[in-house]
């Protein structure tokens, strides 16, 4: 997918301006600084691809950088190879390192991941020192400087670095717009929801770290060529990882321009201070970076870019009249066309055929607690089943078992007769199970369309097809008229519908809805209930967990009542809500006993 001119223009403008400025610099030290700014910008961008987009903070990117640097340096010293060849090799090794590191490390949660990533470069550092590569100097090649990328004019290095930066920016932009970037963002927002929406989170994370490692390796190699000296500390040290992180975080996480902005501001500052005051204050560089990190995380945790953009957005919107957020009666809203459920609606006839989902003897315990005990139930095609029960009855655990987030201790989950136990959530999504979650985590800065399209990737082969599926899903829930609006501006009802649309984008046959009506007022709940009923008529089978019984009794065809993890009874709403056992489960024994008189 070719980037449009609109997005290419800033890149070209930046490149031309930067080239012009650097060509006018004659002092060799400042020429070096101009080059280094670009080097750290590329390094920051590589960090961004993994950590900025997925949210998995890597404190060890120096590992890839250092591998690239040493590959290039040693390759030239021992094998007399040209950097033009070595830098691509460094990229490959960096990518391979990323893959090797990612595979085991992605199993780790949160701070364990960060600690492990921190450990890798430091461990490699010790090994490299032990191997004797304390200081590696590249030999000067006077006879064929071009072949060995050795130029006397520092500005040529700047041009090369600029080319690498442009390449990385274009690559990042392509990633951002494609399903690669969207998948990574979805993982950052809510990994569980992404899995449930059909995204194979492990594969995408591995792809991200491989690409990230490759870029870091390439620029590490280039760094070695520019400086001509490589020491373990200068490429594997903690400051190196910290710089990539700081540059990206300061400028803006998860965006192409962030690391560039960060590098352009911080590197000249640090280098100049180092040059001017470095002898009196050795280490001033580190102090600057430390201060930068602290101010960023306290004041603008997502970086300069986002802070400025949000500020500009706010100013623009206050000067314009606010568009109506709620749907006034006069606006032709597709929702108005859907008649909300009324108590007098005729019961839907669902012939006893086509059992689409069958659960047999499902059990799951946590320690001594039996969360789900020997639960069996059947979902009929096009039916709406309500799963109810008092607090702690095991309802969400049941959904997690159906969805692949938990493995049952016993029992089977059969879809079209095939046992799906043991499959991962994204595989179940592919098989046709969609799910919404109690706690929503939308991409606040992106439009409804972008939020929904993530759910379509499991079904669509091309990004274009995915967009079409997303549009269809948005129409089904009635949000087409505001599909471009940012998620951060939506009401709770609209957010719930968006969540529903994301689940629908994968074209599920079965929908598991977890407290979709929570937080909605009576009128809003009615509207959402109407949407759900329409979906069922269109052929989606629905299982729904809810506390708001008022809405449920009009929505569902039948109830399954769980108590203490076991099925208490099933049946139609009328019968269930008057059944003694159910009353007892909800209101207590004494009440049930009294009510019988």
């Amino acid at each position, binding site marked *: 997918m070719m980037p449009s001119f609109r997005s290419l223009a800033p890149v070209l403008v930046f490149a031309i301006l930067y080239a012009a400025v650097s060509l006018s610099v004659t002092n060799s030290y400042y020429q070096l600084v101009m080059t280094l700014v670009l080097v750290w910008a590329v390094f920051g961008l590589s960090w961004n691809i993994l950590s900025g987009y997925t949210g998995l903070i890597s404190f060890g990117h120096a590992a890839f950088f250092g591998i690239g640097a040493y590959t290039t340096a040693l390759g030239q010293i021992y094998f007399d190879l040209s950097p033009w060849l070595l830098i691509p090799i460094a990229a490959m090794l960096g990518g391979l390192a990323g893959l090797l590191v990612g595979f085991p490390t992605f199993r780790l949660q949160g701070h364990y991941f960060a600690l492990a990533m921190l450990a890798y470069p430091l461990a490699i550092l010790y090994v490299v020192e032990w191997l004797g590569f304390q200081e590696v100097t590249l030999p000067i090649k006077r006879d064929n400087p071009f072949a060995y990328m050795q130029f006397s004019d520092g500005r040529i290095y700047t041009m090369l670095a600029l080319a690498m930066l442009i390449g990385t920016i274009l690559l990042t932009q392509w990633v951002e717009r494609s399903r690669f970037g969207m998948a990574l963002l979805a993982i950052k927002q809510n990994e569980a929801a992404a899995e449930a929406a059909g995204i194979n989170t492990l594969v995408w994370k591995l792809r991200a770290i491989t690409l990230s490692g490759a870029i870091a390796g390439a620029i590490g190699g280039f760094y070695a060529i520019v400086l001509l000296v490589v020491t373990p500390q200068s490429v594997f040290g903690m400051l190196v990882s910290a710089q990539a992180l700081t540059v990206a975080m300061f400028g803006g996480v998860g965006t192409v321009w962030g690391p560039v902005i960060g590098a352009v501001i911080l590197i000249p500052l640090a280098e100049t201070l180092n040059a001017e005051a470095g002898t009196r204050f050795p280490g001033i560089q580190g102090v600057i970076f430390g201060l930068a990190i602290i101010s960023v995380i306290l004041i603008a945790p997502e970086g300069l870019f986002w802070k400025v953009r949000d500020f500009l957005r706010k100013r623009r919107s206050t000067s314009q009249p606010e568009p109506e957020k709620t749907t006034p009666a006069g606006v032709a809203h597709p929702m108005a066309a859907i008649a909300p459920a009324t108590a007098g609606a005729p019961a839907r006839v669902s012939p006893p055929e086509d059992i689409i989902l069958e659960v047999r003897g499902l059990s799951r315990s946590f320690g001594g607690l039996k969360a789900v005990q020997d639960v069996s139930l059947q979902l009929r095609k096009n039916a709406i089943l309500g799963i109810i029960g008092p*607090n702690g009855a095991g309802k969400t655990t049941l959904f997690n078992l159906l969805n692949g987030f938990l493995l049952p201790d016993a029992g089977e989950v059969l879809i079209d007769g095939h046992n799906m136990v043991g499959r991962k959530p994204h595989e179940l999504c592919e098989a046709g199970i969609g799910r919404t979650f109690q706690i929503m985590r939308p991409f606040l800065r992106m439009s409804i369309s972008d939020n929904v399209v993530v759910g379509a990737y499991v079904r669509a082969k091309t990004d274009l097809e995915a967009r079409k599926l997303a549009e269809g899903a948005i129409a089904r829930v009635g949000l087409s008229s505001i599909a471009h609006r940012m998620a951060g501006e939506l009401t709770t009802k609209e957010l719930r519908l968006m969540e529903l649309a994301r689940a629908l984008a994968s074209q599920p046959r079965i929908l598991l809805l977890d407290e979709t009506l929570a937080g909605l007022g009576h009128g809003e709940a009615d509207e959402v209930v109407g949407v759900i009923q329409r979906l069922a008529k269109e052929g989606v089978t629905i299982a729904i967990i809810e506390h708001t019984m008022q809405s449920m009794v009009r929505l569902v065809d039948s109830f399954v009542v769980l108590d203490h993890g076991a099925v208490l009874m099933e049946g139609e709403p009328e019968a269930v809500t008057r059944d003694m056992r159910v009353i007892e489960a909800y209101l207590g024994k*004494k009440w049930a006993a009294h009510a019988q008189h």
Partner: protein
Amino acid sequence: MLSIDNLSAGYSAIPVLKDVSIKVEAGQFVAIVGPNGAGKTTLFKTISGIVRPSAGAITFEGADLLSIQPSRRAHLGIAHVPEGRQVFASLTVMENLEVGATTEAGQRDWKRNIERIFEWLPVLAERREQLAGTLSGGQQQMLSIGRGLASSPKLLMLDEPSMGLAPAIADFIFDRLIEIRRQSGLTILLVEQRVAEALESADHGYVLEAGRVVLEGNNQTLRADDRVRRAYLGM
């Protein structure tokens, strides 16, 4: 003693309590019942300060509770026995009680309180050196109550003490609670799912549904009202 006026509260974007007003007079036993998701636990969390309300006021003995830091509210005399017991699992029974007595009043009355707590809940005395996490559900509930009592409270708030317990044990705990009240005259605010048990001993009851008070009254009036059942089961 406690006055909740037009309180609205929730979590991030999701409103849970809507315009709730409840009164508890000194010496009263007030029960709040209602189905799940009605906002009962959110109400307690707002009183204790873990949740900040979006609108409304809470007054305790004349003081504006909302302007007081959460960890200070216990020192005013409000004891919160949380949902799910929430004992300090890695501390012993005795240590749990000692932490309960962190309040100034609790420190002052420690000797007297610990004697009475052991008298009312003898299992705590028997197992005082046992790690709280290894106690059974019922024992933990008693510890949680004892911990609340150790603070020398004026108001004892209990959030679903029967949850997750076998009915027989829940009944036992209820009996203990009634006995404690009889002997100490403590003001009690109880949230329960088991309606009849809650209303039986209460002076006054409120029915909470979908974040609003839909019914209130005393035992007699509520017991006969089918609207209570409908609040739970929808029809």
